[in-house]
């Protein structure tokens, strides 16, 4: 059976990922994640926001 990762605890958080989607850094603060991303060569990492399906922003 495929294991489904529970991202509920990360809901709304910002994450810095490798291109293979390994989490390098996670924070509630978007600025911290963008700042951390600048420590890596451009294109080696990406930034995503974690949120669960059905999240309503507005």
């Amino acid at each position, binding site marked *: 059976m495929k294991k489904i990762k529970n991202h509920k605890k990360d809901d709304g958080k910002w994450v810095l990922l490798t291109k293979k989607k390994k989490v390098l850094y996670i924070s509630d603060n*978007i600025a911290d994640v963008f700042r951390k991303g600048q420590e890596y060569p451009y294109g080696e990492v*990406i*930034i995503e926001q974690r949120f669960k399906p059905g999240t309503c922003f507005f």
Partner: protein
Amino acid sequence: MIHSILLKFNFTYDDRFGVPLIPITFFNKGGVRTQLLNNAILDSGAYEITIPKALADMLELELRPRSNLVHTAGGLIEAYTATISLKLGRGGRFVHYAKVDICVIKQCPAVLIGIHPIFEDYNVTILAHERKSVLDPRE
């Protein structure tokens, strides 16, 4: 605001997310690009690109207070205008936008890509059942 040649995009998004997402790269005040933000929300309900104030501060954007409060679902709140450069796209296919006026809100829960300028420049089709957004340059 100026932009490079508009390219057609097909962006897919993961089943984990229920809303259309697009990749954006911002530039700070000094012209240094950030890493790619892979999932900005394509939001036809927002007039402008809207970002959290914490990000605007990190990018050292000059914030100009708005004379009027802005309407959100959470009520009327204070907002700022900032001017930013950005790239739409990923994987070597980019459209560069320079000097775009955007909205900055302290309580902004996500990066929202609103009507100005993306929906003005593109015919946007959201294929929710395919988890896909098609951005077709407006002729």
